């Protein structure tokens, strides 16, 4: 295995040359799936999968079905994650993470 790796990196670009290799890789149509990088895939506030829009957005989303970027995920310092919409309503009442009761502060937002 190690040998072949060496081999490949040396002449990775063999596209248009007459190659002495058995195969030339021309094209790769890859398929990948993205999901939020979360530990728990359900939002603890609305009990909907974080990949789906939160309940409130689902109910209102009649108008935008193309870009559902607006119902994103937010991670707290405690590493717990929720729908941003759900969390922003939650912190108005109680500025703590609903799962661990730590003071809530945003670590990062999904985009």
């Amino acid at each position: 295995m190690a040998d072949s790796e060496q081999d490949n990196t040396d002449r990775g670009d063999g596209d248009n040359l007459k190659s002495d290799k058995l195969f030339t890789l021309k094209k790769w149509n890859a398929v990948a799936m993205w999901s939020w990088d979360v530990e728990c895939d359900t939002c603890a506030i609305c009990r909907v999968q974080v990949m789906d829009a939160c309940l409130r957005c689902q109910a209102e989303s009649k108008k935008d079905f193309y870009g559902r970027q607006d119902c994103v995920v937010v991670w707290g310092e405690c590493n717990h994650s929720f729908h941003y919409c759900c969390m922003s309503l939650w912190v108005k009442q109680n500025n703590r993470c609903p799962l661990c009761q730590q003071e809530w502060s945003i670590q990062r937002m999904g985009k």
Partner: protein
Amino acid sequence: MSLKPKKVDFRQTWNVLQETVKGVITLADVPRSTWNDRFSDVYSLCVANPEPFADRLYNETKCFLENHVKQLLTKVQAQGETGLLQAYHRAWTEYSQGINYVHRLYLYLNQQHIKKQKLSEAEMIYGTSSTASPGFEEQMEIGELGLDIWKNKMIAPLRTSLVTLLLEGIYADRVGEAQSASTDVIRGVIQSFVRVEEYKMKGQLDMYQEMFEAPFLEASGNFYSREASELLQQSDVTRYMERVTWRLSQEELRAHKFLHISSVPKVRQCCEEKMVAAHVAWLHSEADLMIENERRRDLSLLYPLSRPLPSGLTPLVLKLTQHITHQGLQAIGPLQGENIHTQFVESMLDVHSKYSELIKEVFKGDQAFIGALDKACSAVVNHRPAPRQPARAPELLAKYCDSLLKKSAKGASESEIEEKLARSITVFKYVDDKDVFQKFYARMLAKRLIHQQSQSMDAEEAMIDRLKQACGYEFTNKLHRMFTDMSVSADLNAKFTTILRERKEENKLGIGFVVYVLQAGAWPLGLPPSPGPFHVPQQLEKSVQAFESFYHAQFSGRKLTWLHHLCQGELKFNYLKKPYLVTVQTYQMALLLLFEHCDAISCRDAAISLRLSHEQLVKHAASLVDCKILKKSVEGELEEETVLTLNFEYYNKRTKFRVTGALQRDAPHDAEATHRSVDDDRKLYLQAAIVRIMKSRKLLRHNQLVQEVLGQSKVTFAPSIGMIKKCIEALIDKQYIERTPNSADEYSYVA
């Protein structure tokens, strides 16, 4: 001439007046000046000094008119039976006109003397007050008086003979023996019955109805019955209905010709009763055959006849439902072969359009029949071949759409395909299990999108929009999201290429790299079934890394999972006589690339170096062996020990081809899995519905709850009662709801 009241000699004035009245009422020539003088005489009599003669004038006039009518009566009677109608009509024409003039001559009396005594409208409606003493005879305006006298002195004595003659006259007209002259006479006579009471404020038609209309309807009824029974004996049903239709229209015309307008509907009703309603059972039994043989002419005769009857159409509607159901089942029954989905949808559409056209033409698009068509179609579409099997429609319909939207749809123009897709919505609306359809459709859409098999993205989008229109946003949400991912991916790829170019790294990847990034949750795709991470060939690693770092720079908080079982690569084979371009799956590609470094490899070793399970390796290797790119050391199934080698003698006519992946092959397994996953989804849907309902109602009986659940889920599928019960049980177990202690079949919501 003075208007001042003066002394008048009644006798003398009346004698003059009487002569003129006689002239007026017989329509003799009365000079204008005489008319004017008599008009003033009426005035002077009414205002005479010292005592007005109004009452006396009234009584004398009444007396005169009575005598006049009596004379007319004798004249009319003198004509005998044969000329009675004509004579009466002549006398009436003259008298009715004459009395009208006399009425005007007595204008002053009418206006000043009689109007004052008259009851006001309010008194008429609410009953008279006590002012009218028993012996008091109410005075009428002269015109009315004249008509009243005519009624009592002329019509009353002639009544029986008049009515008999009229009925005879009309009968003659019916059988076509009437002289045209008598039409006017008959009409005039009948009108006179109406006219003599027209001045009344209520019950204007009482006399007409009682004296003429009732016997007329009875006589007509007898006539219709007789004709109906004669027809029944002589002719078949078609002829019978033609005759009845003709008779109905004739009678309507005749009623308009002779009778008061209020009688027209009564005549029609009477005719319908005797000729249609009386034989409706027979007609309906004949109708069964008409529908079975689709005798359009007969049906279009029968429809207007039976429509007015209460529930006259019900048996027809029922029979038509049965018939269409039967025809539909026959049309889709014998389907078999490769394109069963096309046959199914198109025969269904044929049945639908055939009968909707029939209903439009024969039944004038009557709602009841359209309902029958809907009912029948939905029975056919949702027909289960066997009680435990699911209906085939959802799957077949989805396949049909798939076959149209796929690139391979050959020969059909874009607009044809569009039209077919639009028409397929008709079938879709009848499908009960729309959720099953959605599952199948989503899977097929996913395949089309990922493998770039879509004929046109516009057509795809239009179809999704149609489904959305039929079923709502919720239904197509995921389809939309899938669709969106495609365009988002295209943008991503463009950006990725630009960035590579900016960094002058475009050739660094060494391959043409295109990626679809799909959002989890929207796609009906499983994750790659791998025991450990698949070992990506080195040739691809750069691409993977470069793209991942690009992606993470673009977005945050996302992770990417590569779906290798859906990826495809194009390989150029350099080791054969001519170069081949072969499209294979990533796993197959990886397997082939192993041969760069060895001539032969055992299945076990290949699986280990690719980090695949034996089953997976076998699955992908087998398709390469099957198309002879690889050779195996021993015949039979691929075992762990089987050694694979490249086939250096490989030959194919085409230099560019695709190795059919394992993905496309497990179709039957797919269908079953789809039905299973639909079942799971339904349970969740029902439970959610039950909780929603109970949350708003707090307390509900079992039956009501079931009804409400049925109502909510109707749009997407028709759940079985058993399934609803199970879901209720499940929710009781989960303590969302509980049985109320005092009643066995009532539930309450547990907050």
